[in-house]
């Protein structure tokens, strides 16, 4: 028995911004879901099940908000699942939704990731006092900066590679009307001169804090065949997790990342990712993670990922492997949705529906999310043609 072919029938996003004060949490989610259904040309009642994901419930101060959202998501009388796998959650949520189709349990599934960070205080949510340990790490940057430092020392990458990634992604964001940051007049010098927060991470090299939701409608082969708009076919899906701190752990290039990538490329029959993948959406909350993941995922040789940044390979303006054409996490970061946005943007590329940030003729694309201490991974490959 093989898995049912799965297609992305529709994608819906909200305009990402620091505060969506004009809508409730339910309104925000419904906006994305409504647009995904509109894109898929389906009605609420045609959806069999809903899979929703978000990062910690403390971000909005609502425990298990899927219960409160049941009506807004049209889930009453249907199954609804709620996924939480740290930062990778948007990606894992899409994969759980895909598994409902691949297993033939359902035919059409609505999946959504969201975060409405303005509803609560994210710093509060992440620094709830924990006894018995000494609190000295200020935010995620404090955790990831040593790892980035280790990458720089290991690869010999020039100091400004991170700034180049940040500048490139903010340029890409100008072509994506949904992106949170639209910094029209930003110069490379301004990126470089931005304050150093967690050396070597500058303010300009970090992601914003956004309100937003992203939704997709996934369907089985028959619904993919029937769809009027182009669909994206799922060619491979994989999740991997590893523990956070153990002897010999490679934090720069975690084994879970390498194994997850190997699995998803094998499923999609891809042996040379750089040549065979046309567009990439990877989870880059701190700029240096672009070259680091390019290496880990096999798009670049070990210690050479930064060269692809330096020579413009990852730029939408003529690069061989445009990375994060949407502007990426560096330009929009509603945490629980960020992974799903990567997956959805990958789908938009192969559907030819990415608008101004479309990679011409993209046939296969890669969506990626990671979370925790770079220990949770979710990936998928989608194509314009059936696998």
């Amino acid at each position, binding site marked *: *028995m093989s*898995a049912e072919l799965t297609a992305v029938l529709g994608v819906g996003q909200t305009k990402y911004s620091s505060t969506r004060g004009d809508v*409730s*949490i339910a309104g925000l989610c419904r906006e994305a879901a409504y647009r995904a259904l509109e894109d898929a040309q389906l009605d609420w009642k045609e959806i069999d099940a809903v899979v929703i994901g978000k990062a*910690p*419930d*403390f971000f909005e*101060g*609502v*425990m*298990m*908000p899927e*219960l*409160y*959202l*049941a*009506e807004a998501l049209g*889930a*009453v*009388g*249907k*199954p*609804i*699942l*709620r*996924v*939480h*796998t*740290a930062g990778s959650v948007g990606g*894992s949520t899409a*994969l*759980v939704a895909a*598994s*409902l189709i*691949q*297993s*033939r*349990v*359902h*035919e059409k599934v609505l999946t959504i990731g969201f975060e409405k960070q303005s*509803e609560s205080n994210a710093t509060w*949510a*992440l620094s*709830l006092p*924990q006894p018995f340990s000494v609190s000295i790490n200020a935010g995620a940057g404090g955790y990831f900066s040593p790892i980035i430092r280790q990458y720089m020392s290991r690869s010999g990458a020039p100091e400004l590679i991170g700034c180049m990634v940040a500048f490139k992604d903010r340029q890409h964001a100008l072509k994506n009307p949904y992106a949170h940051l639209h910094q029209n007049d930003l110069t490379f010098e301004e990126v470089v001169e931005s304050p150093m927060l967690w050396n070597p991470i500058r303010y300009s090299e970090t992601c914003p804090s956004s309100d937003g939701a992203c939704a997709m409608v996934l369907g089985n082969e028959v619904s993919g065949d029937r769809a009027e708009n182009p669909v994206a076919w799922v060619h491979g899906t*994989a*999740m*991997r*997790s*590893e*523990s*956070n701190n*153990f002897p010999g752990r490679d934090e720069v290039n*975690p*084994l*879970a990342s390498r*194994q997850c990538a190997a699995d998803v490329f094998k499923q999609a029959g891809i042996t040379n990712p750089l040549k065979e993948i046309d567009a990439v959406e990877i989870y880059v909350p701190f700029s240096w993670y672009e070259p680091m993941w390019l290496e880990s995922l096999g798009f670049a040789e070990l210690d050479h990922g930064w060269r692809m940044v330096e020579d413009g390979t990852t730029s939408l303006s003529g690069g061989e492997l445009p990375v994060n054409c949407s502007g990426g996490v560096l330009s929009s970061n509603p945490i629980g949705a960020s992974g799903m946005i990567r997956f959805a943007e990958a789908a938009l590329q192969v559907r030819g529906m990415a608008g101004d940030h479309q990679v011409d003729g993209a046939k296969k694309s890669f969506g990626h999310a990671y979370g*925790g201490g770079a*220990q*949770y991974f979710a990936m998928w490959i989608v194509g314009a043609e059936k696998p």
Partner: protein
Amino acid sequence: MSKSHSFRDIAVVSVASYQTKTLSEVNEVQLMADLISKCRNSAGVTQEEIGFTCSGSSDFLAGQAFSFVHTLDSVGAFPPISESHVEMDGAFALYEAWVKLQIGEVDTALVYSYGKPSAGSIIDVLATQLDPYYVSPLWPDCFSLAALQARLLLDKGLITLEKMAEISMRSQKNGFDNPNAVRSSKDVSFENLMNEPAIVDPLRASDVSEIADGGCAIILAAEDKAKSFCERPAWIKGIDHRVDSHTLGVRDLTRAPSAFLAAEKAGINTDRLDLAEIHAMTSTQEFILEKEFGLNEKTLVNLSGGCLASDTTMASGLIRISEVARRIISGQVDRGLAHATSGTCLQQNLVCILEGE
């Protein structure tokens, strides 16, 4: 579950659970490491042979963001594992694992969940589950809301205080044989239960669940794999879950339509049902569910004592599945229903039908 397609045979092959009033000798990570290794040893599998792992827990319950990240240590996630987590009761993690096994790429899955409600005030924690704009700011507690539901049942003549006491008595007596039961008594008297004062009128202390710390681990396996791990696997004949509206005002609180629907979709057949393990926070909710499932006298209910004996938030649903599966595996019963619920006044419901061969 779609009817047009025949599903892979998946079974529960191994279970382990533990509940206690307050977990103090070990932390959650140690508890789960112990339960998971017991579960793996009894099936004779190593983590490397397990194709998918899925867990359920809640950050709000733990009082810590990303709390499940620490508990991953109890699995032994190196080399890396294919893994996912739901912010739901472990029964829903089991559903996700069942779906994953249906794809046919992996044959074995580990499911676990845990909760330590003793760390905080469960009624305050659960109040944050309610509509954040209209209801949660009023901080209604889950037992008061269940009391509204109980009052409706009483006033409509659907239940009596005597019937409620019978349900509580059944739980406490059944719990006597369950080492995980926190509240149990072999010779609890009906009169004593009837004479108990109400704590949230009309609910008496014996009508509401006994909150306990604990956890549960389960191993699922497909087809021949299941038979190789276990002499008499508890086959999942059907599993389904549904949700109702969140808005209490639009629901008939004397009913749980999503439970009825889930049971129907899971293929409940009350003529051949030896056991039902029901996840409910009050005697009255247990009563509503018995009615929704259409149970008759052939079916024994909550042999474990149910949640009135021991209720571990985020794990109680998975524990219900383990209680049915354990009795099928041992040959005590042939066919049973396990139920899990989530949300206020039975908003979301999962039904799993298990059967031995």
